[in-house]
């Protein structure tokens, strides 16, 4: 990545070549010095340093003037880049504000004989995603709930990202079971169907194991 490069701020696609000097999109506003060189070209040469010695620039006053301040700007830019205030406070403040401003969605009927109990869609979706997340190699994305016409049953539509290291049908069965189980035991929701859509591959780079949230913590 360019930022780690000791040549600092020169983007990799700005390496000067004679053909590209005429590319109008390259550096808009670029200027040609009285000696005939383009300012951007002289900058790149200066950054390349001794790797590309050029007898012209060594003696040319215009070129020298055009690069005055470049080295110190590049070095100071690196220092400025490292100046980052801690974001912990603002992140915590944002998260508290967001939790206080819950977006609950519509109210869904619970599987209750009196048909009087309702639960917020976002709350159910969160619990069901968590259940899917507990299946190794699976992370839930969207989870939508559609109440049936009869009133007490809902259809669950969930999109998943999964690692491709096991056959998908078996994985899907595991997720279906986990979601059905959570609906019945954790929430008390009557489910008429579970539609699963596997939408993307989950990178298996780290151990994407089940999330451990229930009862195993201190």
């Amino acid at each position, binding site marked *: 990545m360019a930022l780690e490069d000791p040549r600092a701020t020169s983007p990799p696609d700005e390496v000067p070549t004679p053909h590209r000097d005429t590319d109008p999109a390259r*550096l808009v*506003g670029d200027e040609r010095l009285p000696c005939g060189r383009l300012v951007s070209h002289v900058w790149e040469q200066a950054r390349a340093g001794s790797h590309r010695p050029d007898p012209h620039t060594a003696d040319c006053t215009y070129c020298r003037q055009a690069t005055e301040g470049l080295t110190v700007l590049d*070095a*100071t830019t690196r220092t400025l880049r490292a*100046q980052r205030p801690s974001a912990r406070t603002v*992140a915590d403040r*944002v998260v508290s504000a967001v939790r206080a401003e819950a977006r609950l969605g519509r109210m869904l009927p619970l599987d209750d004989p009196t048909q009087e109990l309702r639960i917020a*869609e976002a709350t159910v979706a969160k619990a069901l995603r968590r259940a899917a997340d507990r299946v190794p190699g699976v992370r839930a*994305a969207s989870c939508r709930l559609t109440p049936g016409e009869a009133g007490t049953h809902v259809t669950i539509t969930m999109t998943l990202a999964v690692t491709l290291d096991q056959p998908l049908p078996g994985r899907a069965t595991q997720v279906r079971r986990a979601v059905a189980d959570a609906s019945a035991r954790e929430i008390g929701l009557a489910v008429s169907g579970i539609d699963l859509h596997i939408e993307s591959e989950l990178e298996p780079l780290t151990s994407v194991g089940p999330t451990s*949230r229930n009862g195993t913590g201190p």
Partner: protein
Amino acid sequence: MDVEHEGFSSPRGAEPPPFTGAARPGEPGAGLGDVADRILVARAAEGDDDAFAVLVHRHSGRLLALAFHMLGNVPDAEEAVQDAFLSAWRRLPQFRGDAAFRTWMYRIVTNRCLNVRRAQTPSLALDAVAEPAAHDAGGEPARAAESTAATAALAQALTHLRPGQRACWILRELHGLPYGEIAQVVGESEQTVRGRLFRARRTLMKEMASWR
């Protein structure tokens, strides 16, 4: 290296701990730290605040740095970032995912910073952040002090740039964004971005020429 963090690491390890986006153990959102933005965005759009919390922790560092360099002080920068995230939380159900979440957030924060009306020149509170000078100049105090002064001079010079130029320069030189993404963030053509970068660099070089 997590792709999400590409382009925002400082050289020579003078950096605060990386933003992994992982929730602290035991918190809601634990186990989502390794999940890609677009999955978290899908969850957060449906009101999953745990998923949004992971996004906030993952991106707040770079966004605060952007606002800090745009505005020149920490309190204003924090306010801009906080407003931007709350606005994003409210607008997420309409977010269609045309751009990456990172680009979208950069855009919201940049706009906030450009809209902060300031009666006076931005105050500089550079001493309000951890000073990374210990990593500079090979431990020579005099050179370290000079480097600190030069950095303050550059931060000051930034405030003299036109806001649009300042935004482009910060996004390119401090955040390493590609031209195309900067164009999306500032809502201008790539041509305009390149022009602004050229002029910004020229002006800053002139201002820094006395520091050798």
